[in-house]
């Protein structure tokens, strides 16, 4: 049964809808991430004031807030299945690849919602508008894809361990560092009017590598 619909677009779409629906029922992850982002931005804003003339700090703070606000929630998609004992049932109805892709798309959507709130707030509270909207949004989009791809894969690994929450940050941050470095560097370059081609290539290559790796590795993730 799974092989017939495996990795088909319909299965991915069904997983994405299921994820959205179950998130919308509680809005637990979304509320937590949004509140975290707003609270952190407020704290940073009180602590340092406006940073309009310091694009280096502005870029770093923006990405650190985004990273930590979304990190816990990005792992949550798989942890929820394990804690609710629904993973086995899910696997009976869809192939690992379509589960992975569906959850990745959900995480991307989730990240986009967080950014829709956190990024304008960050720009308003801390600095001015970006110098080049096109470059800024391109770095933001590619950075989000790389971030979601990596965090989804590591989240799937972490869901099967003891002490998932504490471990997730420790295990995912080392492999998220290239994303953070590229995104911060690109956002900063855009503010000083420099080209961001190198950073965009880095983020795109990393996102593509993680996506390809996910497709190969998800078959090995659940075997019991």
């Amino acid at each position, binding site marked *: 049964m799974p092989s017939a619909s495996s990795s088909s677009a319909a299965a991915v779409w069904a997983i994405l809808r299921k994820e959205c629906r179950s998130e919308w029922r509680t809005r637990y992850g979304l509320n937590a991430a949004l509140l975290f982002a707003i609270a952190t931005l407020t704290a940073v804003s009180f602590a340092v004031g406006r940073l309009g003339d310091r694009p280096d700090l502005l870029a770093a703070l923006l990405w650190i807030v985004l990273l930590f606000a979304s990190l816990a929630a990005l792992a949550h998609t798989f942890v929820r299945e394990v804690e609710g004992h629904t993973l086995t049932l899910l696997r009976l109805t869809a192939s690992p690849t379509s589960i992975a892709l569906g959850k990745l798309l959900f995480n991307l959507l989730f990240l986009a919602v967080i950014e829709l709130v956190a990024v304008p707030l960050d720009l308003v509270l801390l600095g001015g508008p970006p110098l080049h909207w096109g470059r800024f949004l391109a770095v933001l989009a590619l950075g989000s894809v790389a971030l979601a791809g990596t965090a989804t894969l590591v989240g799937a*690994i972490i869901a099967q361990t003891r002490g998932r929450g504490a471990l997730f940050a420790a295990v995912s941050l*080392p*492999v998220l560092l290239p994303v953070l470095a*590229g995104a911060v560097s690109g956002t900063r370059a855009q503010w000083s009017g420099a080209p961001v081609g190198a950073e965009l290539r880095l983020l795109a290559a990393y996102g593509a590598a993680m996506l390809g*790796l996910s497709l190969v590795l998800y078959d090995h993730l659940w075997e*019991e």
Partner: protein
Amino acid sequence: MLLRMLLFAWIAAALIAGFLWAPLVPVLGDTTRVFYFHFPAALLTCVAFGWSTLHSVLYLARRDLAHDAQAAGAAELGLLFCVVATLSGSLWAKAMWGSYWNWDPRETSIFFLMLIYGAYLALRSAVDGEARRARLAAIYSCVAFVAVPFLIFVVPRLYFSLHPEPVLNARGKPDIDPRILLVAAAMFAGETALFAWMLALRVRVARLARAREGA
């Protein structure tokens, strides 16, 4: 036993040669000798982590727990050599550049390696059941293997580099005294043998522990 004595004599001889026979690099002075610890350890770190990744992939392909023991042992030993390379490099940096840590590209990449393999070992310690532990660790190892080239080759390019690499490692033809290279190569060979021996011990211990649990 004989092999171990030979290994001990080999490394001792290489060290003595480093102090008495090989010349000092003018700018570096006495600190030239840090090279004999720093460079082989850094190279061996890469060998060990590469070996660990190779066996992780082999485990995913063949599902033999012997590969997992190799991967875990190589990661532990690689972390050990990584610490040696980092500490010796940090001391050398203090002597030559006046600061223990500068986030120069090489320092950054070896620090990332330490973080990644620290996370790998933390992950291993948090999984119940050896087959599942082996599988999840092997998968994480593959993820890390994809991240490492970015961390080592791509990310440092984005930040400006202040490494004095040309002093010791000019591209193509090294403008370094061949005696220094010979001692460093001898140290590397000795440390590689040390690594292989320690890894064999780790793998044997893992096999015996598994046999005892099974019995």
